């Protein structure tokens, strides 16, 4: 299942790119699984996802929790807690 990932703020900076297309294995079922799978790549990914509690996500442009299922998602964004306003 091809999935477009987007990264923002320090997640983007630590990984070194603003997005990519990935094909996670079937056992990657939730947002939290996806974060763990990416962190296991090491390098900037490990740095970006060292503290999963500080990562927020959106599935197809709607905020999603760590336990949200990613099946059927087209675009998942991973980013720090928002700081607008």
């Amino acid at each position, binding site marked *: 299942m091809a999935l477009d990932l987007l990264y923002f703020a*320090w997640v983007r900076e630590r990984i070194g790119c603003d997005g990519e297309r990935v094909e996670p294995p079937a056992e990657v079922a939730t947002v939290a699984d996806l974060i763990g799978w990416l962190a296991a790549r090491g390098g900037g990914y490990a740095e970006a996802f060292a503290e999963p509690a500080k990562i927020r996500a*959106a599935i197809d442009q709607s*905020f999603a929790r760590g336990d949200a299922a990613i099946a059927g998602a087209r675009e998942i964004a991973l*980013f*720090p807690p*928002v*700081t607008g*306003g």
Partner: protein
Amino acid sequence: MIEIAVGSEDFDPGALLARLEATGGGGVASFTGLVRGEDDLEALELEHYPAMTGHALAGIADEARHRWPLLGLVMVHRVGRLVPGERIVFVGTAASHRAAALEACAFLIDWLKTGAPFWKKEHRGARSAWVEARESDDAARARWG
């Protein structure tokens, strides 16, 4: 009347207030957020998630209209590089009576700060750092239930 805008250009609060006043209500309330002129801050950089921002702001606006009888609602948020004293954000409401306008205005900015995909980075000389989310902002959102 609903206006939602995100962009790098500055905006004119007077013009926005005039459009809210033209809705025929008895009260208009607004909040304008500025880049604080603190110590050695040179600039703020505002990043956002373009494909999601408009949709997130529209959702917050819908929630406000569901809770209060509003005649007008404006949300404007800037992105890009902003220096101290520059405007970042404007939220404004018009209603028949002041309570709805004032409460909805406070609600909009509290929800915007925690519910829309914007991130701020501070530039101080050669140093730069992402602003951390504040627990007080989560508490401000939580007070609306």
